[in-house]
């Protein structure tokens, strides 16, 4: 039982103002054999294309812009497309053009909440730099459903408002630097792989 409990199905990352540099720093520090699927909601203008391509230059993992009903695969990073909400269904990503939530589409809260609902204790939520409070409610939901919460230390974030909001609403979240978040995720992934192997054997 303990082994299974250590497995994770998704790392959900939310970032806003200052997010590109933070994401790049974080992703560059993940090992090349990182397995847990990572899905990122980064606020951006609806015309802005090419975030996936830019992030690809920072990491050895594969980076894709999510398409509707895309299957979540190991060792892959998915980026929410501009002007769509991203949600998860069992094992796949789903998109929606519903109205803005908290002035945003994509909304980090919407994505985190669906991760919490679908994956419960098998989800890790990460809130990075940003100038609004998106992600705090969603992170709270992830913790309420038994998942893990990581927040970039507001003192080290380019813009502190978003991680500070998350920290305030989710006191149980671990508050870490980007380097520490990367190290923590790498350790979770190592345990995750061990649990996968023990589940098979």
């Amino acid at each position, binding site marked *: 039982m303990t082994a299974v409990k250590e497995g994770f199905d998704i790392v959900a990352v939310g970032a806003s103002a200052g997010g590109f540099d933070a994401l790049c720093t974080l992703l560059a520090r993940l090992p090349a054999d990182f397995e847990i699927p990572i899905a990122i909601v980064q606020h951006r203008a609806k015309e802005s294309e090419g975030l996936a391509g830019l992030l690809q230059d920072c990491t050895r993992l594969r980076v894709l812009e999510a398409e*509707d*009903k895309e299957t979540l695969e190991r060792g892959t990073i998915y980026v929410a497309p501009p002007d769509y909400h991203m949600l*998860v269904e069992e094992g796949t990503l789903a998109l929606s053009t519903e109205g803005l939530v908290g002035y945003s589409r994509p909304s980090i809260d919407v994505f985190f909440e669906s991760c919490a609902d679908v994956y419960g204790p098998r989800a890790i939520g990460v809130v990075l730099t940003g100038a609004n409070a998106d992600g705090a*409610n969603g992170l709270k939901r992830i913790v309420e459903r038994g998942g893990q919460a990581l927040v970039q230390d507001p003192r080290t974030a380019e813009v502190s408002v978003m991680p500070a*909001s998350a920290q305030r609403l989710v006191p149980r979240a671990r508050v870490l630097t980007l380097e520490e978040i990367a190290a923590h995720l790498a350790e979770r992934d190592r345990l995750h792989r061990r649990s996968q192997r023990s589940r098979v054997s």
Partner: protein
Amino acid sequence: MVVPVKRPSPLPDTPATYARSLERIEVDLLLEGIYRHYGFDFRSYAYSSLKRRLWKRIFAEGLSSISELQSRVLHDPNMMEKLLLDLSINVSAMFRDPAFYKCFREKVVPVLRTYPFIRVWHAGCSTGEEVYSMAILLEEEGLYERARIYATDINEVVLQTARNGIYPAERMQEYTQNYLRAGGTSAFSEYYTAKYDAAIFSEALRRNVVYSQHNLVTDRSFSEFNVILCRNVMIYFDRPLQERVHTLFYESLVPFGYLGLGSKESLRFSKYEACYEQVDEREKLYRRTQ
């Protein structure tokens, strides 16, 4: 320095205390009831976003469970009408994704030019913004006279908005920019008359459009088409239902007919992928080849 933080407002979604397995049972019962009583079939809609929209309505009505909503919906057709608007997402814009229309002009129009008559099916047309966009495009290419656009939606309320052709004037600036980026060859303002805060679109653009109610989930094909547009409609369906709709579209397209999808939709997960070629490497425009 202490950063002032506003406490974010909670979102309309499943309450934290709600058991997920029970929620699923209640949702299934509600959708089954709606289908059997009203004939609207939401049973194969993508669950995560459907559930969010149910909770939005539950909170708006001051209710506290899906079962309470079920009781209200089944006994009150007005509540069903509200829920129908909630469940059919009606977000649209003129020339939404301008690059799509530009690609259509450059790669599809030259082929359509060789046809004596052009039948277009706009499936899930919502409030009609993209129907007017296509009418304008065909008009400017000199093809509208020999075209017929069949615009359908599940929801009669949005179809009436589409027929009226009246949109908020405040959006015209955005639409004008989209229009220009989509390769518009005239002045966008020639197509509407602004009155107070409304923009009324020209009667002439409506002359070859037929609006009718059609349900992609339960209704059959009603003709053969040269072009089918269905953009950001199927993202609300689960994969099996998407596949059924792809069957419907495949059977409704003439050989070498065109299928246009939303920019983040894909034929990759469909068995029909092999029956089409992608017309452009970026835009989701496909041509039936077999």
